[in-house]
């Protein structure tokens, strides 16, 4: 051995945290620490220009061309909600408990409390169909999450995937409660309506195009969260079911929709952050990104408006609806336009 014991070199200053994270604050947040760099950064660190295996078709693990958008470091993305698995699960488990409890509490009186026309026309014939809408979008977002170019973007996409599955299943659970407790209630026709009813065909086409036709993961985010939800979900779920439900004695739908709205606000916030990141002044491709996103917004916004338009007959048929459907839709479109215009990617209706 080389002489007397020595003080451990380098011991004077120990790092005591992850040293590789470009933290937003002085130290990495829990969210940053447990998510960042689990996905290799393209062309750097343990990626080294994708020098690893390819698929038999020649695809590398991650590819720049999985989106038309360009960013020098996708790992710069931060979800404004700073969600990672544990707080996400805790939050959503609490939401589900509340929905389940309320469903149990009102089950025995739902037949008497809820307006019969609302039960049939809206819940049985319309809301039941929405489980298909969310299921389609769930599949689209889940698949797109394979391609996201950083772990933080993918975390937000994965949580949204789960949110959509949750909403789809919440509707199914509620339909089953109604079938059990309301004589004559039968939501099993939802699939036929989804596949055949003229009212839902523009919507089904839109869901299929977004979920199965779009292959650019950036476009999936923009189409679902900045075009579809702010218009279609806003009008056909929030304004129709959430707002009108309590008037007709339906408190469970109101709770489900409120819970879904919590998710929507979060998803809108991270999608806005995503657009801001892609179009920030210091991003070399900011102008190109802005043009591409604006093109997507211009593509999907009118489609969303067209797809939700057939819901007018449902909405305007409700005596309690004080505002005409056209105005409700126009208000949603205006609000969405404001969102995309503020982001500099306007071009909406």
């Amino acid at each position, binding site marked *: 051995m080389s002489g007397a014991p020595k003080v451990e070199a380098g011991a004077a200053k120990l790092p005591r945290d992850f040293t590789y994270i470009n933290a937003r604050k002085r130290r990495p947040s829990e969210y940053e620490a447990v998510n960042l760099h689990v996905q290799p950064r393209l062309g750097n660190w343990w990626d080294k220009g994708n020098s690893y295996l390819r698929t*038999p078709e020649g695809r590398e693990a991650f590819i720049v061309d999985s989106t038309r958008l360009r960013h020098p470091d996708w790992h710069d993305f931060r979800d404004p909600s700073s969600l990672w698995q544990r707080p996400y699960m805790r939050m959503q488990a609490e939401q589900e408990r509340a929905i389940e409890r309320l469903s149990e509490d009102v089950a025995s009186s739902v037949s008497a409390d809820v307006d019969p026309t609302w039960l049939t026309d809206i819940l049985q014939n319309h809301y039941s169909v929405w489980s298909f809408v969310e299921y389609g979008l769930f599949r689209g977002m889940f698949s797109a999450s394979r*391609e996201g170019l950083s772990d933080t973007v993918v975390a937000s996409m994965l949580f949204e995937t789960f949110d959509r599955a949750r909403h789809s299943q919440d509707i199914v659970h509620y339909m089953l409660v109604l079938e059990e407790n309301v004589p004559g209630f039968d939501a099993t026709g939802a699939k036929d309506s989804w596949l055949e009813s003229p009212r839902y065909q523009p919507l089904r086409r839109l869901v299929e195009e977004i979920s199965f036709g779009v292959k650019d993961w950036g476009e999936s985010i923009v189409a679902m969260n900045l075009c579809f939800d702010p218009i279609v979900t806003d009008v056909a779920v929030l304004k129709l079911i959430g707002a009108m439900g309590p008037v007709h004695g339906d408190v469970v739908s109101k709770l489900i929709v409120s819970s879904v709205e919590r998710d929507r606000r979060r998803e809108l916030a991270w999608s806005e952050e995503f657009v801001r990141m892609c179009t920030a002044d210091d991003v070399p491709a900011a102008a190109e990104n802005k043009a591409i996103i604006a093109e997507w917004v211009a593509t999907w916004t009118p489609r969303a408006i067209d797809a939700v338009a057939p819901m007018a007959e449902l909405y305007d048929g409700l005596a309690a609806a004080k505002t005409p459907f056209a105005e409700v839709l126009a208000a949603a479109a205006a609000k969405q336009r404001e969102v995309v215009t503020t982001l500099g990617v306007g071009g909406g209706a």
Partner: protein
Amino acid sequence: MPSLIEAHDRVKSVEWTPSYVEHQPRYPTRYKVPKKTKDPFRTLVREYLTMEQEKDDRQYGGFEDVLSRTSGAKDADPGWLEGLKLALPIVVYAEYGAEKCQSMLVDTVDNAELRAGYLAQAMDERRHLNQQMYLLRYFAKNAADPCGFDRGMQVRGDNIFARAGRVCFDNFYVNDPIECALSLQVVGETAYTNPLFVALTAVAALNGDHATPGVFLSIQSDEARHMANGYSTLAAVLSEPDNLPMLQQDLDRSFWRQHVFLDPLISVLFDYFGRGKMEKSYGKLWEEWVADDWVGNYIGTLEPFGLQVPKYFAHAADRMKWSGHTAAMVAAASWPLHYWRWPSLTPEHMEWMEEQYPGWYDIYGNFWEAYALLEDPSMEMIPIQGLSERPYFCRTCALPCVFPKIDEPTTRVRSYGGRNHAFCSEPCEEIFCQQPERYESTMLWDELWDGTSLEEFVVTRNLLREDGKTLIAQPHTKPDAHMWTVEDITRINFEIENPIKNLKDAPELVKQADGTLALAIAAL
């Protein structure tokens, strides 16, 4: 309230085949998958959330409890913690690859039953990688020597063994989705999560590490569902007779690819970083868990359907006698290149090795005796300089071609596509020949760093401690021994080489009509 079965059946009916657009999966499969099979778990989002939240509360609560009752990681055997420095950044990647695998399966496998299981598994994988990152950060904050825990995730890409880990786990998501499921769920999770997350839990506890067991056991509690997902996927594809020939070949390949990296890794963690404290060695546990349970009980039950024990299993069993020891020796011999410290073996540990692996000392004893002497930088030598020649790296598994035994490697070298390729074994060569297009862009560690001095490597690859001169890696874990610095390394005068690049006349592989490779007639 409606029953779970009723709810599950209705949830499954929320499914349709798109008709306005033709659904082209991002990752097509060669397999035929029937639309209906059995979902063994009937996983619903609502039940899943409740179950996992309870598990999270127990696990993270337990973590806080351990911290309050003990002096945390500072009590743990430092040698064991160095093994975790090595392993956690690699295992995290396996979890991420597993999450990606689910996002491919959900798109490609047109089966509502299986899709529900894939969603739950994706969330589980996110759970596991967050848990493991949380654990990694806990050690960065609390271990006596946090260097390596603080940046393992960053520097793993430059590490010989972590790069091989990436190649192993890329097979979870950079391939035909069904073959990914075989690699992940049928082999990785069914054969290897017990050794990894259960056996290593006991090793951790015996080494005074009270944080890791709770995390690993909580992770393992999700794995039964994943194994069932694998079984369901397997049963689904087995029900189509046309799938069988490729299924067998894919299973053979998946098994070998997992074995070739995971067995040396777990063996090194268990038998070397475990510090000789376990009653049984990994070699013995492998017999029970991989040979008896996985091959005997699991794969055995599939034989009536035409599926056979993986072709390379006997070869793997044979390599098990040596591969862990060989990996440990080569990794310790190249210690300055890593982001962890390599403890030397105590006399008691060597006794344990000899007891567990009779004859071990005759083959490896001298190396470890010499290794302890070379702790001293005045010897001006790192053990890898004692090798008569530099090993090649295997194009298929990315590990050095030193297996099964460093003095009797089964290395073979071929030329194809204008490059020389070494293979550590016959299965690795066969696997390359089956799908050569998968390796067109691969760069092995020695190809990336050819011509780089050791000094330049440790400086530029962020392998120095905060003082800018002391190496993260050390050939010991003793608090009072000399800590090697970059000056010590400079004196050694060691350069990374790619010995295969100038090799002439390697036998040539040529493409066959079916796209696979075979030796050119002239080479036969």
